[in-house]
């Protein structure tokens, strides 16, 4: 990765216009031609430095319901509990974290009512309480990963 790649990564996180030639502006800013910008973007994606390029959809706006769930499970029981949680197709992400609340997963379901159904099933089968922590408000973020 050279300085231009870094600038490109930083710049591409800010977003591009939706127009016929969305890279034209950025190419001008960087003093590259459009084809070079496209080539570099492709290489950054192929190398895994960028995980995707395209519209970032807001899941909330597309329907369905989402929530974050926390569980506190003894370390020696985690391996039994995780497959029970992950077996639900509505579980989108599941992370183990360094805290007494050590399992954190996101549920993506068709409707609000379904959240309780899935959580009661998980609680019944694991024997542990599932703490439902839905988003009450979202704050505008401007994080860009400067490289």
């Amino acid at each position: 990765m050279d300085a231009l790649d870094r600038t490109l990564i930083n710049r591409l996180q800010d977003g591009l216009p939706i127009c016929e030639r969305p890279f034209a502006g950025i190419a001008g800013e960087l003093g590259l031609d459009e084809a070079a910008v496209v080539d570099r973007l492709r290489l950054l994606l192929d190398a895994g430095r960028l995980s995707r390029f395209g519209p970032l959809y807001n899941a909330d706006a597309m329907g369905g319901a989402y929530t974050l769930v926390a569980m506190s499970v003894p370390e020696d029981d985690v391996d039994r509990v995780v497959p029970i949680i992950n077996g639900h197709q509505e579980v989108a992400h599941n992370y183990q974290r360094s805290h007494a609340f050590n399992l954190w997963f996101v549920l993506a379901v068709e409707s609000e009512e379904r959240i309780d159904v899935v959580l009661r099933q998980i609680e019944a089968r694991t024997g542990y309480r599932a703490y439902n922590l839905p988003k009450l408000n979202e704050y505008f973020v401007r994080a860009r990963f400067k490289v």
Partner: protein
Amino acid sequence: MKVDAIDRRIIEATQGGLPVTARPFHAVADRLDLAADEVMRRLRRMQEIGVIRRVGAVPNHYALGYRANGMSVWDVPDERVDELGEKVGALDFVSHCYCRPRILPDWPYNLFAMVHGTDRAGTEEKVRQIAALLGGADRGHAVLYSTRILKKTGLRIDKSQSQVISHKSQEQCSALRSSSGS
């Protein structure tokens, strides 16, 4: 209904990414047998109403060296959480910032801010910056680092049902590539 059937076709075609070419929206239009102007007009409208946050690149934090991704959680007074959440979200190292319910007595934290650093010391320093910003409103906080990805699938619109479901992508489960949750 915010999006119609044609919007959904466009979402399905682009949720995995845009073709990497000089005229990506034209490539999408060709694939869907729609006019490019219509595709762009619909995408712009979806951006205006918030269905699309922006069209851009998503970095792989982990590959770019951000390896200490901490979920910082804060107990702040409920009557100030929105004001403080806006301030914390505006920090350039916070990628997600939400208000969530407390579940007392076990879980006292109502403000969540995902913080990214290249190492834990760097992330801890950023957490200290949040603590300084919150001042006396910080009645307690914790930082939870992800230690293992147990499942990671994208949220996707399913073609057959046209609804959002979690879509399994096994290759992403296999390695701890990114430790940020959402």
